[in-house]
């Protein structure tokens, strides 16, 4: 088992974020998080990535309990971050270098790869996300959709085991959405675990293997596999509206 949540709750100072979550995820799954606005998808991703720690309940990653105390140790934090890559809903916060190439190279360089290996990764990742032409641009001056793709490239460059994607398709053209989904599918085939929040059931339907559906009370309303979903037309109709 890759990760497991038990009775997990998360409260923001004056609102609820997540209520009583139970969930376990295996390595290599392709999971779609769906649910109304403000139901807690982003919050769950923040917790999984270690950005926030639960107020109550437990979060195990690779049988290691992830708590604030555990994460206070820089080394632990770093190990966790290396295994889990995340693309934020607002990708603006993620881009902080002076050029797109630098942005993508940042991670591999920190890992201590040789210059040639870093260069290789940069070229590959930019090609995978169709950003090759943006190479020398300044990240924060890109258009919305371009930023999304660069953010994904910069995360991919680190080759994490788990990819957390918060609405990665937003702002992309339909063609680019298709390309990204194909890429994600290939990554999954290569053994990565992918957890993605989305409002676009039509697009993710084809790739998702498991759908976790939140309700507006910040709980998990349903957790169905793609196979089961085929047999539940009313559930499909519901997902079409989320």
């Amino acid at each position: 088992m890759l990760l497991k949540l038990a009775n997990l709750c998360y409260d923001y100072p004056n609102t609820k974020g997540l209520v009583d979550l139970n969930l376990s995820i295996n390595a290599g799954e392709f999971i779609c998080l769906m649910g109304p606005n403000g139901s807690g998808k982003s919050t769950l991703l923040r917790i999984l990535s270690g950005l926030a720690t639960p107020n109550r309940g437990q979060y195990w990653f690779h049988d290691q309990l992830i708590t604030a105390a555990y994460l206070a140790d820089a080394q632990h934090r770093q190990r966790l971050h290396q295994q889990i890559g995340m693309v934020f809903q607002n990708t603006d916060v993620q881009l902080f270098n002076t050029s797109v190439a630098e942005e993508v190279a940042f991670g591999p360089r920190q890992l201590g790869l040789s210059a040639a290996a870093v260069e290789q990764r940069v070229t590959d990742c930019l090609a995978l996300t169709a950003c090759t032409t943006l190479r020398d641009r300044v990240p924060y001056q890109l258009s919305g959709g371009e930023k999304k793709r660069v953010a994904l490239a910069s995360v991919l460059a680190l080759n994490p085991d788990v990819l957390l994607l918060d609405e990665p398709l937003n702002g992309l053209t339909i063609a680019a959405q298709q390309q990204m989904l194909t890429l994600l599918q290939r990554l999954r085939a290569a053994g990565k675990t992918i957890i993605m929040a989305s409002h676009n059931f039509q697009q993710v339907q084809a790739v998702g293997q498991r759908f976790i559906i939140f309700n507006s009370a910040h709980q998990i309303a349903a957790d169905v596999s793609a196979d089961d979903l085929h047999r539940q037309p009313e559930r499909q109709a519901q997902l079409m509206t989320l």
Partner: protein
Amino acid sequence: MHIPDNYLSPATCGTLVAAMAPVWTVSVLKVKAQVKKRHETLPMLGIAASLAFLIMMFNLPIPGGTTAHAVGGTLLAVLIGPWAACLALTVTLLLQALLFGDGGILAFGANAFNMAFIMPFVGYACYRIGHHYHHDKLGLAVGAYLGINLAALVAGIELGLQPLLAHTANGTPLYCPYGLNVAVPAMLLAHLLVAGWVEVLFSLFVFQFVQKVAPTNLYQTPVKTHQRPWVYLLAGLAVLSPLGLLASNTAWGEWSPQELKQQLVQQHLGTHVPQGMQHGFQFDALFSDYAIGGLPVSVGYVLSAATALIIFLLLIRGLQRGTDTTK
């Protein structure tokens, strides 16, 4: 309030850097301890520095149509704690001096002393006192006003001492040409009347916003530990540094203490008759004092030839069509 280069003698600058050294050391130690507890302190430092930068470049309207800008020393101290604010402001000043030409490079120590030490600490102390009596905002307002004015006063003194500390044999100042009787009022007046109030308003409104929206994001004073020694050490240093300023400068100036005293008295009473008023235009004074003479004639020739050549080349270069680099 940024003091540019060449207004302070190198000795004064050195003294003030030395005065800042212990402050920086303590700040780094304090902040390191803070980082251990909350690892977001580290990025927060850098962010506070850039926040301070933005605050200092933001034009605030003042009645009459002109603008002024706040420094935000007190505000930052209240938001992220005085020690972190000290480091953050130091970084801001360094950035401004080296990369943006705001404030001098040699004068960095002086600027840090005024804006990264006096302002946040004085401001924060007032805020704490206000906090103690449950008047946070009042404390902050008083702190912001006092902090910036005290910093301005110190800057004025640093500048105003220069004609006394460093001058040529006949009394021509080498650095800042204004004595205490000009520098201090000039600095203080502007800040007492305008900049101080701008600072107060700015700090108050930002504080009010943060307090209303996310009170937990204000700096929480750590539980009291043995921090007294630091306080005494720093207070002592703050008092001593002006003295050190004088002491270290004796090496540079060529006057005796009596002369200094005499000059101080003169400056304050303003009995000193300004030279310029006495003599009118006196361009030959330039060469009589700073002597281009004393050079062999041949060297002079070589120098002027080299100058002419380089100016010529520069002109040609400057008029050339730019091909590469910036568009």
